């Protein structure tokens, strides 16, 4: 029993990270119909920022700095991607454009940091373990769960309760009308793209102590984020949250229950959800609900 409870906890920490990463992906698709396949590369860029600034377990300050720096890097990348994708119209072209950018960014990171596996230590005050359910559990992962909760609440407040949120929701719902009202929708779109990418890069830093940084990690994270977004419903913030929590649990608890099928669990879950609900669990194509 204890084993399962620890797994649930672990699933929640993975889910928090996935939510942070997938949120930007989902919003960008919901608003612009752009499938940003460079999202994984943005995540990896954030992870390498952590390697550069906080690789050896220096204090809390360096780690926080790394998160902020990564957010900036992510925002810049997101803005650039937004600009690039707006010049092409066909969706397949946009998706492949972002895939091309992903390859280029990943290769540049490999040139800059080498191909070795890099490890990022959790900041010194919180790299301990704590006794939960009879087992030692890393404190850092508990903090990540906390972060996920804070993020979910913040996003809810932003999207549902603020003026900016209503502009975002309106732009997704009926862009022409919003534009007719005099609001520069182009800026809204670029802003959302940049914010989503910043969040993904910050996620790269936060996930650093758990996943590290290495070539190829971007593909793995992209795949997970895509699954989360598709399961939750493209363009839906609530969907992204539900999808992230679900996938986190499927990975953690599922691996405990069915270790032989561990590699197929994610795709089986996705296939099941899509068969029953092709639009995702909480679809919100024409509106961004928090």
């Amino acid at each position, binding site marked *: 029993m204890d084993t399962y409870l620890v797994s649930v906890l672990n699933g929640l920490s993975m889910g928090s990270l996935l939510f942070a990463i997938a949120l930007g992906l989902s919003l960008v*698709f919901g608003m612009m*119909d752009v*499938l940003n396949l460079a999202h994984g590369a943005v995540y990896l860029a954030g992870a390498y920022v952590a390697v550069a600034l906080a690789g050896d377990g220096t204090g809390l300050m360096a780690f926080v700095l790394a998160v902020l720096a990564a957010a900036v890097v992510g925002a810049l990348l997101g803005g650039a991607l937004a600009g*690039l994708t707006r*010049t*092409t*119209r*066909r*969706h*397949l*072209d946009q*998706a*492949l*454009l972002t*895939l*091309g*950018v*992903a*390859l*280029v960014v*990943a*290769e*540049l990171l*490999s*040139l800059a940091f080498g191909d070795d596996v890099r490890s990022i230590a959790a900041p010194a005050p919180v790299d301990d373990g704590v006794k939960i359910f009879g087992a030692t559990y890393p404190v850092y992962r508990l903090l990540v769960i906390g972060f996920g909760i804070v993020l979910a609440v913040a996003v809810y407040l932003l999207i549902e309760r603020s003026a900016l949120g209503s502009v975002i929701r309106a732009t997704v719902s009926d862009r022409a009308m919003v534009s007719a009202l005099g609001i520069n929708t182009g800026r809204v779109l670029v802003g959302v793209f940049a914010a989503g990418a910043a969040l993904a890069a910050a996620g790269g830093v936060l996930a650093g102590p758990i996943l590290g940084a290495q070539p190829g990690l971007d*593909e793995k994270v992209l*795949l997970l984020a*895509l*699954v989360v977004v*598709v399961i939750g*419903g*493209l*363009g839906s913030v609530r969907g992204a949250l539900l999808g992230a929590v679900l996938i986190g649990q499927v990975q953690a608890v599922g691996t405990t229950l069915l270790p032989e099928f561990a*590699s*197929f669990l994610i*795709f*089986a879950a*996705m*296939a099941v959800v*899509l*068969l029953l609900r*092709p*639009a*995702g669990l909480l*679809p919100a*194509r*024409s509106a961004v609900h928090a």
Partner: protein
Amino acid sequence: MKAVDAPAGPDTARMTANGPDEPAGIRPHRARIPVALAVLAVLAAAPLVLGPFPITTMARILAFAVLVLSVDLLTGVTGLPTLGQAAYFGVGAYTAVLVGLHITSDALVQVIAGLAMGLAAAGLTGWVAVRARGIVFLMLTLAIGESVHQLADTWSAVGGSNGLSGMPPITLFGGSPLLAPGLVYWWVLVVAVAVFAGVALVARSPYGRTLRGVRDNESRMRALGYRPALARYSVFCLAGAVAGAGGALWAAQARFVSPGDMGFDVAALALLSVVIGGAGSLWGPCLGAALVLLVRDNLSGYIGGHGPLVLGLMFVIVVFVLPRGVAGLTGLQRARGKGAR
């Protein structure tokens, strides 16, 4: 209420293909035949001029081009962008190697077996995928592709991560084993050309027109009495068969197959080739296949292994400069004011 994945109008409907479209296709036929003959002549004469390594490379390109052809059939002609064809390619390759190891080294039998297994695999998994369109379809094909890849990687009966090696050289009609790379290349060329001709025939037939109709405006097709779901499923199976044949050709020249021959990387490269070459034109993606494979396998070594960097830059450039891919270059004189962009 917009469904999440249904194309909603003529503009968003052009989600994928935009190659030399049907009406213009019939007229330039006669101009293209001498070009096709010349290309074939050059390809056929290659082993007389080139050394063994370039010939082996060309054989690999041809086998990969068959896979790319199957992707173009789905993506370019039917408007279903896919990341799962590599799975059926792999099924075909594994089948051919297993046949070569345990049953017969006759190359024709291997190709037919690969084709049949590709068809069967596509038939089994296709019904899941074609219930969706657009991004969801893409994700489902990705899931199928990755699952099959995982299966190959962990199932010891097919060698697991070590793959299957030791396949004897192919024989033809009871002759002696074809060890010379040039002879294997000729076999691969013959089959690849045959498959290409078959797919071209399909694309220009009334069935092909149905597919393009489904791609461009599905609701109208339904209103006219067609059954888009059936069309999509049937082309999915057909594409699976084509991919399976490609896999068998790959096995014939490599005599070895491993899980890395399918999976996301190969699928992404195939999709890339289609876009670079020009989705829907069939011959463009074959050219794209050559380019992509040459960059990945041959150029990459010269630039410290950073082939993916070049590939990525190629993607970006192609999207900006050649929106219709290489095949679009031939259509530039004909000002087709469809405003597809």
